[in-house]
Protein backbone atom coordinates (compact mmCIF):
# COMPACT_ATOMS: atom_id res chain seq x y z
CA UNK A 1 0.00 0.00 0.00
CA UNK A 2 1.24 3.49 -0.86
CA UNK A 3 0.59 6.09 1.80
CA UNK A 4 1.04 9.82 1.22
CA UNK A 5 3.50 10.32 4.06
CA UNK A 6 4.23 13.85 5.17
CA UNK A 7 0.97 15.12 3.69
CA UNK A 8 -2.44 15.62 5.19
CA UNK A 9 -4.66 12.66 4.46
CA UNK A 10 -7.98 11.38 5.74
CA UNK A 11 -7.86 8.31 7.95
CA UNK A 12 -10.16 6.45 10.29
CA UNK A 13 -9.06 6.24 13.93
CA UNK A 14 -8.95 2.46 14.01
CA UNK A 15 -6.88 2.35 10.82
CA UNK A 16 -4.49 4.98 12.16
CA UNK A 17 -3.85 2.67 15.12
CA UNK A 18 -3.02 -0.18 12.76
CA UNK A 19 -0.68 1.95 10.66
CA UNK A 20 0.99 3.36 13.79
CA UNK A 21 1.79 -0.17 14.94
CA UNK A 22 3.29 -1.11 11.56
CA UNK A 23 5.32 2.14 11.52
CA UNK A 24 6.57 1.40 15.06
CA UNK A 25 8.05 -1.90 13.92
CA UNK A 26 5.25 -4.06 15.32
CA UNK A 27 5.54 -7.40 13.53
CA UNK A 28 2.95 -9.51 15.34
CA UNK A 29 -0.75 -8.88 15.88
CA UNK A 30 -3.20 -11.20 17.58
CA UNK A 31 -6.85 -10.28 18.06
CA UNK A 32 -10.45 -11.37 18.17
CA UNK A 33 -13.31 -9.48 16.50
CA UNK A 34 -15.34 -7.12 18.66
CA UNK A 35 -17.20 -3.94 17.79
CA UNK A 36 -16.30 -1.04 17.64
CA UNK A 37 -12.65 -1.81 16.82
CA UNK A 38 -13.00 -4.32 13.96
CA UNK A 39 -11.24 -2.10 11.46
CA UNK A 40 -7.99 -2.69 13.36
CA UNK A 41 -7.78 -6.47 12.82
CA UNK A 42 -9.06 -5.93 9.28
CA UNK A 43 -6.27 -3.43 8.68
CA UNK A 44 -3.64 -5.67 10.22
CA UNK A 45 -4.83 -8.70 8.23
CA UNK A 46 -4.48 -6.68 5.04
CA UNK A 47 -1.18 -4.95 5.75
CA UNK A 48 0.86 -7.03 8.21
CA UNK A 49 1.80 -9.51 5.44
CA UNK A 50 3.21 -6.60 3.40
CA UNK A 51 5.92 -6.08 6.02
CA UNK A 52 6.49 -9.79 6.62
CA UNK A 53 4.81 -9.78 10.01
CA UNK A 54 2.38 -12.13 11.71
CA UNK A 55 -1.38 -11.63 11.77
CA UNK A 56 -3.45 -14.27 13.52
CA UNK A 57 -7.13 -14.21 14.42
CA UNK A 58 -7.26 -15.92 17.79
CA UNK A 59 -10.11 -18.09 19.04
CA UNK A 60 -10.80 -15.68 21.91
CA UNK A 61 -9.40 -12.62 23.63
CA UNK A 62 -8.03 -15.00 26.25
CA UNK A 63 -6.00 -16.78 23.58
CA UNK A 64 -5.07 -13.53 21.84
CA UNK A 65 -3.40 -11.99 24.89
CA UNK A 66 -1.51 -15.22 25.57
CA UNK A 67 -0.31 -15.31 21.96
CA UNK A 68 0.87 -11.74 22.54
CA UNK A 69 2.63 -12.98 25.69
CA UNK A 70 4.51 -15.67 23.73
CA UNK A 71 5.40 -13.54 20.71
CA UNK A 72 6.52 -10.57 22.81
CA UNK A 73 8.54 -12.88 25.07
CA UNK A 74 10.40 -13.98 21.93
CA UNK A 75 11.43 -10.33 21.51
CA UNK A 76 9.10 -9.16 18.74
CA UNK A 77 7.10 -5.92 18.99
CA UNK A 78 3.56 -7.21 19.42
CA UNK A 79 0.07 -5.71 19.71
CA UNK A 80 -3.48 -6.75 20.41
CA UNK A 81 -6.59 -4.59 20.28
CA UNK A 82 -10.08 -5.06 21.59
CA UNK A 83 -13.01 -3.29 23.18
CA UNK A 84 -14.24 -3.30 26.76
CA UNK A 85 -15.70 -6.84 27.23
CA UNK A 86 -12.74 -8.26 25.33
CA UNK A 87 -10.27 -6.31 27.45
CA UNK A 88 -11.90 -7.82 30.55
CA UNK A 89 -11.11 -11.27 29.16
CA UNK A 90 -7.49 -10.24 28.64
CA UNK A 91 -6.90 -9.13 32.21
CA UNK A 92 -5.51 -12.49 33.31
CA UNK A 93 -2.90 -12.38 30.57
CA UNK A 94 -2.06 -8.72 31.18
CA UNK A 95 -1.33 -9.52 34.83
CA UNK A 96 1.06 -12.32 33.80
CA UNK A 97 2.71 -10.16 31.13
CA UNK A 98 3.25 -7.31 33.59
CA UNK A 99 4.74 -9.56 36.26
CA UNK A 100 6.94 -11.30 33.67
CA UNK A 101 8.24 -7.89 32.50
CA UNK A 102 7.29 -8.45 28.88
CA UNK A 103 6.62 -5.35 26.74
CA UNK A 104 3.55 -5.21 24.52
CA UNK A 105 0.88 -2.78 23.37
CA UNK A 106 -2.84 -3.22 24.08
CA UNK A 107 -5.44 -0.90 22.60
CA UNK A 108 -8.90 -0.58 24.15
CA UNK A 109 -11.51 1.12 21.96
CA UNK A 110 -13.96 1.54 24.81
CA UNK A 111 -17.70 0.95 24.55
CA UNK A 112 -20.56 1.28 27.01
CA UNK A 113 -20.62 -1.12 29.96
CA UNK A 114 -21.02 -2.98 32.21
CA UNK A 115 -21.74 -6.46 30.92
CA UNK A 116 -22.51 -6.59 27.25
CA UNK A 117 -23.44 -2.91 27.59
CA UNK A 118 -23.58 -1.41 24.13
CA UNK A 119 -21.27 -0.37 21.31
CA UNK A 120 -21.45 3.40 21.87
CA UNK A 121 -18.46 5.53 22.94
CA UNK A 122 -17.67 5.36 26.66
CA UNK A 123 -14.87 5.78 29.18
CA UNK A 124 -16.13 3.30 31.73
CA UNK A 125 -12.97 1.21 31.68
CA UNK A 126 -10.90 3.92 33.38
CA UNK A 127 -10.50 2.08 36.68
CA UNK A 128 -9.78 -1.21 34.90
CA UNK A 129 -7.10 0.49 32.78
CA UNK A 130 -5.28 2.58 35.37
CA UNK A 131 -5.65 0.59 38.59
CA UNK A 132 -4.22 -2.66 37.27
CA UNK A 133 -7.31 -4.47 36.00
CA UNK A 134 -6.16 -7.99 36.70
CA UNK A 135 -4.97 -9.55 39.94
CA UNK A 136 -1.84 -8.49 41.74
CA UNK A 137 0.44 -5.53 42.37
CA UNK A 138 1.04 -4.21 38.90
CA UNK A 139 -0.05 -1.32 36.75
CA UNK A 140 -0.39 -0.83 33.05
CA UNK A 141 1.00 2.40 31.61
CA UNK A 142 -2.03 4.07 30.01
CA UNK A 143 -2.28 6.81 27.40
CA UNK A 144 -5.53 8.33 26.10
CA UNK A 145 -5.90 10.03 22.73
CA UNK A 146 -8.46 12.66 21.71
CA UNK A 147 -7.94 12.70 17.94
CA UNK A 148 -7.02 10.38 15.08
CA UNK A 149 -3.59 12.00 14.87
CA UNK A 150 -3.03 11.42 18.56
CA UNK A 151 -4.21 7.80 18.29
CA UNK A 152 -1.45 7.36 15.71
CA UNK A 153 1.19 9.21 17.72
CA UNK A 154 0.45 7.53 21.05
CA UNK A 155 0.12 4.03 19.59
CA UNK A 156 3.44 4.44 17.84
CA UNK A 157 5.19 5.79 20.91
CA UNK A 158 3.57 3.13 23.09
CA UNK A 159 5.94 0.55 21.60
CA UNK A 160 9.00 2.58 22.66
CA UNK A 161 7.58 3.10 26.14
CA UNK A 162 6.71 -0.61 26.46
CA UNK A 163 10.27 -1.59 25.56
CA UNK A 164 11.76 1.09 27.84
CA UNK A 165 9.85 -0.11 30.91
CA UNK A 166 9.43 -3.77 29.90
CA UNK A 167 5.74 -3.33 30.58
CA UNK A 168 2.40 -3.66 28.84
CA UNK A 169 1.26 -0.25 27.62
CA UNK A 170 -2.40 0.49 26.98
CA UNK A 171 -3.76 3.03 24.54
CA UNK A 172 -7.32 4.14 25.23
CA UNK A 173 -9.74 5.34 22.63
CA UNK A 174 -13.48 4.94 22.33
CA UNK A 175 -16.10 4.07 19.73
CA UNK A 176 -16.18 7.65 18.48
CA UNK A 177 -12.42 8.08 18.08
CA UNK A 178 -12.05 4.63 16.53
CA UNK A 179 -14.80 5.13 13.98
CA UNK A 180 -14.35 8.76 12.95
CA UNK A 181 -12.22 9.98 10.05
CA UNK A 182 -9.97 12.99 10.45
CA UNK A 183 -7.01 14.55 8.70
CA UNK A 184 -3.72 13.03 9.79
CA UNK A 185 -0.09 13.43 8.77
CA UNK A 186 1.99 10.28 8.84
CA UNK A 187 5.70 10.84 9.51
CA UNK A 188 8.10 10.05 6.65
CA UNK A 189 10.32 7.78 8.70
CA UNK A 190 9.26 4.40 10.05
CA UNK A 191 10.94 2.06 12.52
CA UNK A 192 13.03 -0.80 11.15
CA UNK A 193 12.44 -3.60 13.66
CA UNK A 194 15.82 -5.14 12.82
CA UNK A 195 17.53 -1.92 13.91
CA UNK A 196 15.94 -1.90 17.38
CA UNK A 197 18.19 -2.57 20.39
CA UNK A 198 18.52 -6.26 21.32
CA UNK A 199 16.38 -7.59 24.18
CA UNK A 200 18.79 -9.42 26.48
CA UNK A 201 15.92 -11.17 28.28
CA UNK A 202 14.00 -12.53 25.27
CA UNK A 203 13.36 -16.27 25.01
CA UNK A 204 14.47 -16.78 21.42
CA UNK A 205 16.64 -19.88 21.68
CA UNK A 206 19.64 -20.36 24.00
CA UNK A 207 22.24 -20.38 21.23
CA UNK A 208 25.68 -19.63 22.65
CA UNK A 209 24.28 -18.17 25.85
CA UNK A 210 22.72 -19.41 29.10
CA UNK A 211 19.02 -20.25 28.93
CA UNK A 212 16.44 -17.58 29.72
CA UNK A 213 13.13 -17.96 31.53
CA UNK A 214 10.09 -15.71 31.20
CA UNK A 215 8.08 -16.31 34.31
CA UNK A 216 5.73 -14.70 36.81
CA UNK A 217 6.01 -17.36 39.53
CA UNK A 218 8.03 -16.45 42.62
CA UNK A 219 7.12 -19.01 45.23
CA UNK A 220 9.11 -17.33 48.02
CA UNK A 221 7.23 -14.26 49.32
CA UNK A 222 10.44 -12.25 49.72
CA UNK A 223 11.35 -12.96 46.09
CA UNK A 224 7.92 -11.90 44.89
CA UNK A 225 8.01 -8.79 47.04
CA UNK A 226 11.35 -7.90 45.45
CA UNK A 227 9.77 -8.31 42.00
CA UNK A 228 6.75 -6.22 42.99
CA UNK A 229 9.08 -3.49 44.19
CA UNK A 230 11.08 -3.72 40.98
CA UNK A 231 7.90 -3.12 38.98
CA UNK A 232 6.97 -0.24 41.27
CA UNK A 233 10.40 1.33 40.74
CA UNK A 234 9.70 1.29 36.99
CA UNK A 235 6.32 2.94 37.53
CA UNK A 236 8.01 5.57 39.69
CA UNK A 237 10.50 6.19 36.90
CA UNK A 238 7.63 6.45 34.41
CA UNK A 239 5.98 8.98 36.71
CA UNK A 240 9.11 11.12 36.34
CA UNK A 241 9.52 10.73 32.59
CA UNK A 242 6.28 9.76 30.88
CA UNK A 243 3.63 12.09 32.27
CA UNK A 244 1.74 13.77 29.43
CA UNK A 245 -0.98 16.38 29.63
CA UNK A 246 -2.28 19.31 27.62
CA UNK A 247 -4.01 22.54 28.58
CA UNK A 248 -6.16 25.09 26.77
CA UNK A 249 -7.24 28.55 28.00
CA UNK A 250 -6.00 27.90 31.53
CA UNK A 251 -3.93 31.11 31.88
CA UNK A 252 -6.75 33.24 33.31
CA UNK A 253 -9.20 30.45 34.14
CA UNK A 254 -11.31 30.43 37.31
CA UNK A 255 -12.68 27.00 36.46
CA UNK A 256 -10.68 24.08 35.13
CA UNK A 257 -12.52 21.41 33.23
CA UNK A 258 -10.65 18.11 33.55
CA UNK A 259 -11.39 15.58 30.84
CA UNK A 260 -9.59 13.15 28.52
CA UNK A 261 -10.34 11.63 25.13
CA UNK A 262 -13.74 12.29 23.58
CA UNK A 263 -14.98 13.99 26.76
CA UNK A 264 -12.17 16.53 26.33
CA UNK A 265 -13.21 17.06 22.69
CA UNK A 266 -16.67 17.97 23.91
CA UNK A 267 -15.10 19.92 26.76
CA UNK A 268 -13.04 22.24 24.55
CA UNK A 269 -16.17 23.19 22.59
CA UNK A 270 -17.98 23.83 25.87
CA UNK A 271 -15.12 25.99 27.13
CA UNK A 272 -15.15 28.10 23.99
CA UNK A 273 -18.91 28.61 24.38
CA UNK A 274 -18.51 29.44 28.07
CA UNK A 275 -15.78 31.96 27.32
CA UNK A 276 -18.01 33.57 24.68
CA UNK A 277 -20.53 33.99 27.51
CA UNK A 278 -17.87 35.58 29.73
CA UNK A 279 -17.00 32.59 31.94
CA UNK A 280 -13.21 32.15 32.33
CA UNK A 281 -12.99 28.37 31.96
CA UNK A 282 -10.00 26.32 30.76
CA UNK A 283 -9.24 22.70 29.92
CA UNK A 284 -6.81 20.36 31.64
CA UNK A 285 -6.46 17.19 29.60
CA UNK A 286 -4.55 14.22 31.02
CA UNK A 287 -2.96 12.20 28.20
CA UNK A 288 -1.07 9.77 30.40
CA UNK A 289 -3.74 8.36 32.71
CA UNK A 290 -1.19 6.17 34.50
CA UNK A 291 1.12 7.76 35.46
CA UNK A 292 -1.40 10.48 36.22
CA UNK A 293 -0.29 14.13 35.88
CA UNK A 294 -0.61 14.74 39.62
CA UNK A 295 1.83 17.61 40.01
CA UNK A 296 0.61 19.43 36.92
CA UNK A 297 -2.99 19.20 38.06
CA UNK A 298 -2.13 20.20 41.64
CA UNK A 299 -0.63 23.44 40.29
CA UNK A 300 -3.81 24.13 38.31
CA UNK A 301 -5.91 23.48 41.44
CA UNK A 302 -4.03 26.20 43.30
CA UNK A 303 -4.84 28.71 40.56
CA UNK A 304 -8.56 28.07 39.93
CA UNK A 305 -11.62 28.43 42.14
CA UNK A 306 -13.10 25.07 41.17
CA UNK A 307 -12.56 21.97 39.06
CA UNK A 308 -15.23 20.23 37.03
CA UNK A 309 -14.48 16.68 35.89
CA UNK A 310 -16.35 15.64 32.75
CA UNK A 311 -16.12 11.92 32.09
CA UNK A 312 -18.11 9.39 30.05
CA UNK A 313 -18.30 7.16 33.12
CA UNK A 314 -19.78 7.57 36.56
CA UNK A 315 -17.14 8.78 38.97
CA UNK A 316 -13.90 7.11 37.87
CA UNK A 317 -11.53 9.81 36.58
CA UNK A 318 -12.78 12.10 39.36
CA UNK A 319 -11.14 9.88 42.00
CA UNK A 320 -7.65 10.45 40.57
CA UNK A 321 -8.41 14.14 40.17
CA UNK A 322 -9.38 14.39 43.86
CA UNK A 323 -6.19 12.59 44.87
CA UNK A 324 -4.10 15.02 42.81
CA UNK A 325 -5.96 18.12 44.01
CA UNK A 326 -5.86 16.92 47.61
CA UNK A 327 -8.54 19.30 48.83
CA UNK A 328 -6.97 22.52 47.55
CA UNK A 329 -10.14 23.40 45.59
CA UNK A 330 -13.65 21.97 45.20
CA UNK A 331 -13.92 19.12 42.65
CA UNK A 332 -17.27 18.54 40.93
CA UNK A 333 -18.31 15.63 38.74
CA UNK A 334 -20.30 15.53 35.54
CA UNK A 335 -20.41 11.88 34.53
CA UNK A 336 -22.34 10.38 31.62
CA UNK A 337 -22.04 6.60 31.55
CA UNK A 338 -23.74 4.05 29.32
CA UNK A 339 -22.37 5.19 25.98
CA UNK A 340 -23.79 8.71 26.16
CA UNK A 341 -21.62 11.47 24.70
CA UNK A 342 -22.58 14.72 26.41
CA UNK A 343 -23.20 17.75 24.21
CA UNK A 344 -21.14 20.94 24.62
CA UNK A 345 -24.34 22.72 25.75
CA UNK A 346 -24.80 20.19 28.56
CA UNK A 347 -21.22 20.70 29.71
CA UNK A 348 -21.67 24.51 29.55
CA UNK A 349 -24.72 24.11 31.79
CA UNK A 350 -22.55 22.22 34.30
CA UNK A 351 -19.82 24.86 34.07
CA UNK A 352 -22.43 27.53 34.87
CA UNK A 353 -23.74 25.47 37.80
CA UNK A 354 -20.27 25.02 39.30
CA UNK A 355 -19.43 28.71 38.84
CA UNK A 356 -22.68 29.67 40.58
CA UNK A 357 -21.95 27.25 43.46
CA UNK A 358 -18.42 28.53 43.81
CA UNK A 359 -19.45 32.20 43.95
CA UNK A 360 -22.19 31.36 46.44
Amino acid at each position, binding site marked *: MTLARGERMLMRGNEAIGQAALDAGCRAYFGYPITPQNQIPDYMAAHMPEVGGVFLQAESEVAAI*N*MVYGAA*AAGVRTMTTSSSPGISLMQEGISYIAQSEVPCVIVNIMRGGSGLGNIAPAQSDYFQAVKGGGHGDYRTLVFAAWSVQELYDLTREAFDIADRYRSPVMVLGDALLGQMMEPIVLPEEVVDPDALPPKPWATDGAKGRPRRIVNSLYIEPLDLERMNRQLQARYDEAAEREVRCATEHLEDAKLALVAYGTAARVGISAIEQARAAGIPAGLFRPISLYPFPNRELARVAEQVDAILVAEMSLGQLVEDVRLAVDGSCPVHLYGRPGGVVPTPAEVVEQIERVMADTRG
Partner: protein
Amino acid sequence: MEADTETQVLFERPQAMQPVRMHYCPGCTHGIVHRLLAEVMDEFDLVERSVGVAPVGCAVFAYEYFTCDMLEAAHGRAPAMATGVKRVRPDLFVFAYQGDGDLASIGIAETIHAAARGENISIIFINNAVFGMTGGQMAPTTLPGMRTSTTPEGRDLKLAGNPMRVCELLAALDGPAYLARVAVTNPRRVREAKRAIRRAFQAQLDELGFSLVEVLSTCPTRWGMPPLDALKWLDDNMVPYYPIKEFVVAEGLAEAE
Protein backbone atom coordinates in the same frame (compact mmCIF):
# COMPACT_ATOMS: atom_id res chain seq x y z
CA MET B 1 41.94 -55.02 36.77
CA GLU B 2 42.24 -53.04 33.56
CA ALA B 3 42.94 -49.31 33.76
CA ASP B 4 40.07 -46.80 33.72
CA THR B 5 41.07 -45.55 30.30
CA GLU B 6 38.87 -48.20 28.70
CA THR B 7 35.67 -47.07 30.49
CA GLN B 8 32.84 -45.75 28.46
CA VAL B 9 29.78 -43.72 29.45
CA LEU B 10 26.67 -45.82 28.91
CA PHE B 11 24.10 -43.67 30.68
CA GLU B 12 24.19 -40.03 31.69
CA ARG B 13 22.05 -36.99 32.24
CA PRO B 14 20.82 -35.59 28.94
CA GLN B 15 22.25 -32.20 27.96
CA ALA B 16 18.69 -30.88 27.85
CA MET B 17 18.19 -31.53 31.58
CA GLN B 18 19.26 -29.17 34.32
CA PRO B 19 21.39 -30.88 37.00
CA VAL B 20 18.87 -30.13 39.72
CA ARG B 21 16.70 -32.18 42.04
CA MET B 22 13.06 -32.29 40.94
CA HIS B 23 10.17 -31.53 43.28
CA TYR B 24 7.93 -34.39 42.17
CA CYS B 25 6.54 -36.88 44.69
CA PRO B 26 8.15 -40.32 45.00
CA GLY B 27 6.75 -42.67 42.38
CA CYS B 28 5.30 -39.92 40.20
CA THR B 29 5.97 -40.52 36.51
CA HIS B 30 6.55 -36.86 35.57
CA GLY B 31 10.27 -37.45 36.06
CA ILE B 32 10.32 -40.28 33.53
CA VAL B 33 8.52 -38.16 30.96
CA HIS B 34 10.86 -35.18 31.58
CA ARG B 35 13.78 -37.49 30.96
CA LEU B 36 12.31 -38.88 27.73
CA LEU B 37 11.62 -35.36 26.49
CA ALA B 38 15.19 -34.31 27.27
CA GLU B 39 16.67 -37.39 25.60
CA VAL B 40 14.73 -36.68 22.42
CA MET B 41 15.78 -33.02 22.51
CA ASP B 42 19.39 -34.20 22.70
CA GLU B 43 18.95 -36.70 19.89
CA PHE B 44 17.55 -33.98 17.59
CA ASP B 45 20.12 -31.45 18.91
CA LEU B 46 17.35 -29.03 19.84
CA VAL B 47 18.50 -27.40 23.09
CA GLU B 48 19.88 -24.23 21.51
CA ARG B 49 16.82 -23.63 19.36
CA SER B 50 13.99 -24.69 21.63
CA VAL B 51 11.47 -22.72 23.63
CA GLY B 52 9.42 -24.77 26.08
CA VAL B 53 6.20 -23.69 27.77
CA ALA B 54 5.50 -24.93 31.29
CA PRO B 55 1.93 -25.24 32.62
CA VAL B 56 0.13 -24.57 35.87
CA GLY B 57 -0.21 -27.75 37.87
CA CYS B 58 2.31 -30.24 39.20
CA ALA B 59 4.70 -29.44 36.33
CA VAL B 60 4.60 -25.71 37.08
CA PHE B 61 8.33 -25.79 37.85
CA ALA B 62 9.18 -27.61 34.61
CA TYR B 63 10.95 -24.42 33.52
CA GLU B 64 13.60 -25.23 36.14
CA TYR B 65 14.38 -28.65 34.69
CA PHE B 66 15.36 -28.03 31.06
CA THR B 67 18.40 -26.25 29.68
CA CYS B 68 16.55 -24.56 26.82
CA ASP B 69 14.70 -21.24 27.03
CA MET B 70 11.45 -21.64 28.94
CA LEU B 71 8.20 -19.76 29.46
CA GLU B 72 5.73 -20.19 32.28
CA ALA B 73 2.14 -19.91 31.03
CA ALA B 74 -1.10 -19.07 32.80
CA HIS B 75 -3.35 -22.04 33.58
CA GLY B 76 -4.41 -23.68 30.32
CA ARG B 77 -2.88 -21.04 28.05
CA ALA B 78 0.30 -22.84 27.03
CA PRO B 79 -0.90 -23.67 23.49
CA ALA B 80 -1.73 -19.99 22.87
CA MET B 81 1.61 -18.87 24.26
CA ALA B 82 3.45 -21.51 22.23
CA THR B 83 1.52 -20.32 19.17
CA GLY B 84 2.77 -16.77 19.77
CA VAL B 85 6.39 -17.91 19.93
CA LYS B 86 6.16 -20.25 16.95
CA ARG B 87 4.40 -17.74 14.71
CA VAL B 88 7.07 -15.07 15.17
CA ARG B 89 9.98 -17.54 15.21
CA PRO B 90 9.08 -20.55 13.05
CA ASP B 91 12.77 -21.53 13.10
CA LEU B 92 12.51 -22.35 16.81
CA PHE B 93 11.33 -25.70 18.14
CA VAL B 94 8.39 -24.99 20.44
CA PHE B 95 6.85 -27.43 22.88
CA ALA B 96 4.37 -27.25 25.74
CA TYR B 97 4.16 -29.60 28.70
CA GLN B 98 0.70 -29.75 30.29
CA GLY B 99 -1.40 -31.77 32.68
CA ASP B 100 -5.01 -32.86 32.38
CA GLY B 101 -6.55 -30.00 34.35
CA ASP B 102 -4.49 -27.47 32.43
CA LEU B 103 -4.96 -28.92 28.95
CA ALA B 104 -8.35 -30.62 29.07
CA SER B 105 -10.29 -28.47 31.54
CA ILE B 106 -9.43 -24.77 31.67
CA GLY B 107 -7.36 -24.84 28.48
CA ILE B 108 -9.46 -27.07 26.24
CA ALA B 109 -10.37 -24.18 23.94
CA GLU B 110 -6.72 -23.24 23.41
CA THR B 111 -5.88 -26.92 22.88
CA ILE B 112 -8.61 -27.58 20.33
CA HIS B 113 -7.93 -24.41 18.35
CA ALA B 114 -4.16 -24.91 18.28
CA ALA B 115 -4.83 -28.43 17.00
CA ALA B 116 -7.46 -27.26 14.51
CA ARG B 117 -5.08 -24.63 13.10
CA GLY B 118 -2.48 -27.32 12.68
CA GLU B 119 -0.21 -25.09 14.74
CA ASN B 120 3.30 -26.44 14.25
CA ILE B 121 3.98 -27.07 17.94
CA SER B 122 4.37 -30.20 20.04
CA ILE B 123 2.52 -30.87 23.28
CA ILE B 124 3.33 -33.43 25.93
CA PHE B 125 0.09 -34.09 27.80
CA ILE B 126 0.26 -35.78 31.19
CA ASN B 127 -3.00 -37.58 32.00
CA ASN B 128 -3.05 -38.84 35.59
CA ALA B 129 -6.82 -38.49 35.99
CA VAL B 130 -6.55 -36.06 38.87
CA PHE B 131 -5.62 -32.49 39.84
CA GLY B 132 -2.40 -33.27 41.67
CA MET B 133 -1.05 -29.86 42.69
CA THR B 134 -4.26 -28.56 44.23
CA GLY B 135 -4.95 -31.61 46.37
CA GLY B 136 -6.43 -34.39 44.28
CA GLN B 137 -9.62 -32.93 42.88
CA MET B 138 -11.58 -34.35 39.93
CA ALA B 139 -10.02 -33.80 36.51
CA PRO B 140 -11.79 -33.99 33.13
CA THR B 141 -10.06 -37.36 32.79
CA THR B 142 -11.07 -38.77 36.19
CA LEU B 143 -12.51 -42.23 35.57
CA PRO B 144 -16.16 -43.13 36.29
CA GLY B 145 -16.49 -44.07 39.93
CA MET B 146 -12.98 -42.83 40.78
CA ARG B 147 -12.65 -41.18 44.19
CA THR B 148 -11.13 -37.71 44.34
CA SER B 149 -11.39 -34.96 46.94
CA THR B 150 -14.30 -33.41 45.02
CA THR B 151 -15.92 -36.76 44.16
CA PRO B 152 -15.60 -38.36 47.62
CA GLU B 153 -18.13 -41.07 46.79
CA GLY B 154 -16.56 -41.70 43.41
CA ARG B 155 -17.22 -39.87 40.13
CA ASP B 156 -20.97 -40.03 39.56
CA LEU B 157 -21.48 -39.49 35.85
CA LYS B 158 -24.98 -38.08 36.46
CA LEU B 159 -23.54 -35.35 38.68
CA ALA B 160 -20.05 -34.76 37.36
CA GLY B 161 -20.41 -35.72 33.73
CA ASN B 162 -18.25 -38.00 31.66
CA PRO B 163 -14.48 -38.18 31.32
CA MET B 164 -12.90 -36.75 28.16
CA ARG B 165 -10.73 -38.71 25.78
CA VAL B 166 -8.48 -35.97 24.45
CA CYS B 167 -6.71 -37.83 21.64
CA GLU B 168 -10.02 -39.12 20.27
CA LEU B 169 -11.45 -35.61 20.45
CA LEU B 170 -8.52 -34.04 18.61
CA ALA B 171 -8.39 -36.86 16.06
CA ALA B 172 -11.68 -35.52 14.66
CA LEU B 173 -9.80 -32.42 13.46
CA ASP B 174 -7.79 -32.00 10.26
CA GLY B 175 -4.94 -30.04 11.92
CA PRO B 176 -3.04 -32.67 13.90
CA ALA B 177 -0.08 -34.35 12.21
CA TYR B 178 0.63 -36.73 15.06
CA LEU B 179 -1.53 -37.85 17.99
CA ALA B 180 -0.64 -40.74 20.24
CA ARG B 181 -1.48 -42.06 23.68
CA VAL B 182 1.23 -43.88 25.59
CA ALA B 183 1.96 -44.96 29.15
CA VAL B 184 5.14 -45.24 31.19
CA THR B 185 4.20 -48.15 33.43
CA ASN B 186 6.93 -50.59 32.38
CA PRO B 187 10.21 -50.48 30.42
CA ARG B 188 8.59 -51.59 27.15
CA ARG B 189 5.96 -48.87 27.43
CA VAL B 190 8.61 -46.30 28.35
CA ARG B 191 10.46 -47.14 25.12
CA GLU B 192 7.21 -46.83 23.16
CA ALA B 193 6.52 -43.51 24.84
CA LYS B 194 9.92 -42.22 23.79
CA ARG B 195 9.29 -43.33 20.23
CA ALA B 196 5.99 -41.41 20.24
CA ILE B 197 7.72 -38.26 21.53
CA ARG B 198 10.32 -38.67 18.78
CA ARG B 199 7.60 -38.88 16.15
CA ALA B 200 5.79 -35.87 17.60
CA PHE B 201 8.99 -33.82 17.49
CA GLN B 202 9.74 -35.11 13.99
CA ALA B 203 6.31 -33.87 12.89
CA GLN B 204 7.18 -30.36 14.00
CA LEU B 205 10.68 -30.48 12.54
CA ASP B 206 9.16 -31.59 9.23
CA GLU B 207 6.61 -28.74 9.51
CA LEU B 208 3.69 -31.15 9.27
CA GLY B 209 1.53 -29.49 11.91
CA PHE B 210 0.24 -30.03 15.41
CA SER B 211 1.55 -32.95 17.44
CA LEU B 212 0.52 -34.23 20.86
CA VAL B 213 1.55 -37.20 22.95
CA GLU B 214 -0.78 -38.10 25.81
CA VAL B 215 1.10 -39.91 28.52
CA LEU B 216 -0.98 -41.92 31.00
CA SER B 217 0.74 -41.21 34.28
CA THR B 218 0.49 -42.14 37.92
CA CYS B 219 -0.19 -39.96 40.92
CA PRO B 220 0.52 -42.24 43.89
CA THR B 221 0.10 -39.36 46.33
CA ARG B 222 -3.38 -38.31 45.24
CA TRP B 223 -4.49 -41.80 44.32
CA GLY B 224 -3.44 -42.89 47.81
CA MET B 225 -1.40 -45.87 46.64
CA PRO B 226 2.19 -47.08 46.82
CA PRO B 227 3.98 -46.36 43.51
CA LEU B 228 4.00 -49.99 42.30
CA ASP B 229 0.30 -50.39 43.04
CA ALA B 230 -0.34 -47.14 41.17
CA LEU B 231 1.42 -48.50 38.06
CA LYS B 232 -0.73 -51.63 38.20
CA TRP B 233 -3.89 -49.58 38.84
CA LEU B 234 -3.11 -47.50 35.77
CA ASP B 235 -2.66 -50.56 33.58
CA ASP B 236 -5.80 -52.21 34.95
CA ASN B 237 -8.11 -49.18 34.99
CA MET B 238 -6.88 -46.33 32.82
CA VAL B 239 -5.59 -48.29 29.85
CA PRO B 240 -8.97 -49.96 29.17
CA TYR B 241 -10.68 -46.54 29.21
CA TYR B 242 -7.87 -44.68 27.43
CA PRO B 243 -6.55 -47.05 24.76
CA ILE B 244 -2.85 -46.87 24.02
CA LYS B 245 -2.36 -46.25 20.33
CA GLU B 246 -1.38 -43.83 17.62
CA PHE B 247 -4.48 -41.91 16.53
CA VAL B 248 -3.04 -39.74 13.78
CA VAL B 249 0.19 -40.22 11.87
CA ALA B 250 0.63 -37.77 9.01
CA GLU B 251 1.57 -39.34 5.72
CA GLY B 252 4.91 -37.57 5.41
CA LEU B 253 5.83 -38.60 8.92
CA ALA B 254 5.21 -42.28 8.29
CA GLU B 255 7.66 -42.13 5.38
CA ALA B 256 10.31 -40.41 7.50
CA GLU B 257 10.43 -43.31 9.96
